């Protein structure tokens, strides 16, 4: 060692686990590829186009807005996830320019205007979807039968739009369950196949990227409440965006509470609101608005639901 040698310094700890934000994003993206593949399989070229437009506009908007804000653009994968998830919750027949509008709104307004990744209050995907529903309600509620790569699309309704949904006659719909489980039904691009979403969600759980409490409490609440209200719980669980919402949206760390208990409150709230909107609301599907509402409540939950520090309760007792 030479006397003039300089040492580097850094704060402790000097070890890092190395699972960075962008690594988490790309792993999530990997899990998302499964429902994406199902969407392309069932809805063909049209789905692929919607996905490509949504993702590319999301990333471009992120680059542009970062430039306008004078912040460095980091390719952390979060814009790709936002773009992809937005495409997955859109109907396959939506005009592509509307997709672009939704994608730009998601990134520029819902995410970046609030300060970017980590600072947004609302899930950008759901914010973008709500915006599109408000502006283009007809296009956002036109559904087609899964036709794969065949040319002609047949307009139909989603299972949630059927008039038997809120009746007790639900015993013998095994065929319908099977179609909904596999994804061979009308709906948004990436939400129809419960099976592939469950596998993707399973990957997220196995990698400990999401908290198991959220999907369990969310889907569980929906099942229990539909039973109570006399609806078919299996249909309610498989229908609409519930599975995708429970595994990929309600688990978004940024817009959901930070504590375990807070997350359970959040997920149960999502479940209750979903059923209320589905049963009494003006539209058949309530998952997306339910999560958006609960996003708004998240800062409040985080304010009041805290962790009990080591040695806390007894300290209070001994003081009084």
């Amino acid at each position, binding site marked *: 060692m030479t006397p003039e040698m300089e040492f580097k310094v850094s704060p402790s700890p000097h070890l890092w686990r190395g699972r960075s934000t962008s690594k988490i994003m790309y792993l999530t993206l990997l899990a998302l590829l499964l429902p994406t593949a199902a969407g392309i399989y069932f809805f063909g070229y049209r789905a692929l186009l919607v996905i490509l437009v949504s993702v590319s506009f999301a990333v471009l908007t992120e680059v542009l807005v970062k430039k306008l804000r004078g912040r460095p653009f980091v390719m952390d994968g979060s814009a790709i996830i936002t773009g992809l998830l937005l495409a997955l919750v859109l109907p396959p027949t939506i005009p592509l320019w509307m997709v672009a509008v939704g994608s730009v709104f998601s990134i520029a307004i819902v995410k970046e205007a609030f300060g970017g990744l980590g600072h947004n209050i609302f899930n950008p995907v759901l914010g973008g979807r709500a915006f599109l529903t408000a502006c283009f309600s007809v296009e956002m509620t036109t559904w087609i039968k899964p036709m794969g790569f065949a040319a002609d699309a047949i307009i139909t309704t989603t299972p949630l739009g059927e008039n038997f949904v809120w009746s007790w006659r639900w015993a013998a719909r095994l065929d319908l369950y099977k179609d909904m489980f596999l994804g061979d039904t009308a709906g948004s691009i990436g939400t129809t196949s419960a099976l592939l979403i469950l596998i993707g969600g399973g990957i997220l759980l196995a990698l400990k990227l999401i908290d198991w409490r959220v999907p369990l409490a969310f889907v569980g609440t929906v099942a229990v409440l539909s039973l109570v209200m006399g609806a078919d719980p299996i249909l309610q669980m498989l229908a609409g965006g519930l599975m995708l919402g429970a595994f990929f949206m309600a688990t978004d760390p940024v817009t959901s509470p930070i504590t375990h208990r807070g997350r359970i409150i959040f997920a149960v709230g999502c479940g209750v609101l979903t059923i209320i909107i589905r049963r009494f609301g003006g539209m058949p599907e309530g998952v997306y608005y339910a999560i958006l509402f609960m996003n708004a409540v998240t800062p409040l939950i985080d304010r009041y639901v805290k962790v009990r520090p*080591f040695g806390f309760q007894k300290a209070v007792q001994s003081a009084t």
Partner: protein
Amino acid sequence: MNIRLDKKSLRYGVELPQNKLMAQSPIELAPLPEMVTIPLEENVGAASETLVNKGDKVLTGQKITDSDEFDSVPMHATVSGEVTSITTAINPSTGQAMKVIAITSDGEDKWVELQPCPNPEAISSEEILKAVREAGVVDADGITSLAHVKLLPPKDKKIDTVILNGYEWEPYVTSDHRVMLEYGEKVLSGLNIMKKVLSPVNVYVAIGDNKEDAMDSLEELIVKAGYDFKITPIKAGYPLGDEKTLIKTVVNREVLIGGLAADVGVVVYNVSTAKAIHEAIYEGKPYIERVVTVTGTVGNPKNLLVRFGTPVKNLIEYCGGITEEGSEVIIGGPMTGISQFDPDSPIFSDTNCVLVKVSQPIMDMDCISCGHCIEVCPMKLMPTLYPKYVKVGRYNECATAYIDICTECGVCAYTCPANIPIVQYVRVAKKELSRRMGKE
């Protein structure tokens, strides 16, 4: 009778890569440094008066400071030679100025005459306390408590458990492990002295399950000497070496916020302290050296027996020098150790390791509220809050979020996806809060 109890495991924290490369490497004697710097305020005790002047000749083990306070310990010269200066230097772990005595070695290592206690087997508690204080034993518990003060708990607290901490929680560090293997008899004898003074019901030796050989050898020694000690194996994980989590794991008692281990009837000592207490009583030897693991990107990593005050550069040179460009020199382990900017930073009584490691840049990105830091925090705090509060200057809210019980173990920052240096923010907040407290 079964000496080894069931394995206990830690309920929080993370599993870290162990990297305990030096576990099988025997302790070597570090060469005597040509100069030592002995910090006068290195422990929590009251300030002492200097007994030597510049130019004085001192012998190894000679007292150089002392005070009349019970709550303080004398310091000793760690080499023989001449006092070259009494000055201020920068404290390597806090960055604050501290008073030091610098001694230039004459290379002969002439010791003062050691005075062992005449009859160690029949010694009274008062005499033990006196001898331990005289030897200047400081417990390596992370906060440099004084060993003899811990032996005299407040009158109203009944101590029923003594835990000897051989857990050694940090990666890379193997000094306590080697002490248990090579000085097992001294460690257990020291523990027996503590038992004599504190008269607890239970005495546990807590050892990480990654140190099977240390458990075996101590078990054998306990049987041979007929001690009434139990060995508690603990599943290796991090963090679990600080008093509160160790007590919770071993005897399942929770120390209150602002409370002491003695409140729940427990005293915890480090294994090296037990060895030092044995040496103080049986050999009359002052506490002037300890085992330090020198590891990482050095040519020839070793476990060394080092005199206090030895400059860190001497150890690195002796171990073959730094082998990688861009390395940082850390005093302590990789999780809680402090990077040094000064090659002359002295080894303290709580230095268990000198780690040389290639420096990693810190990114400090935006928090994505994933909550991992909350899941792993052993004190069950919400570490994510502290950087957010500090960035906007809301220090008082750090205080209401119980920042004072944070042990700065570093698991939060280790696990953080955004690579936020949470511990550094905690230090900033604690410092600002204590500054405000001082003003009020």
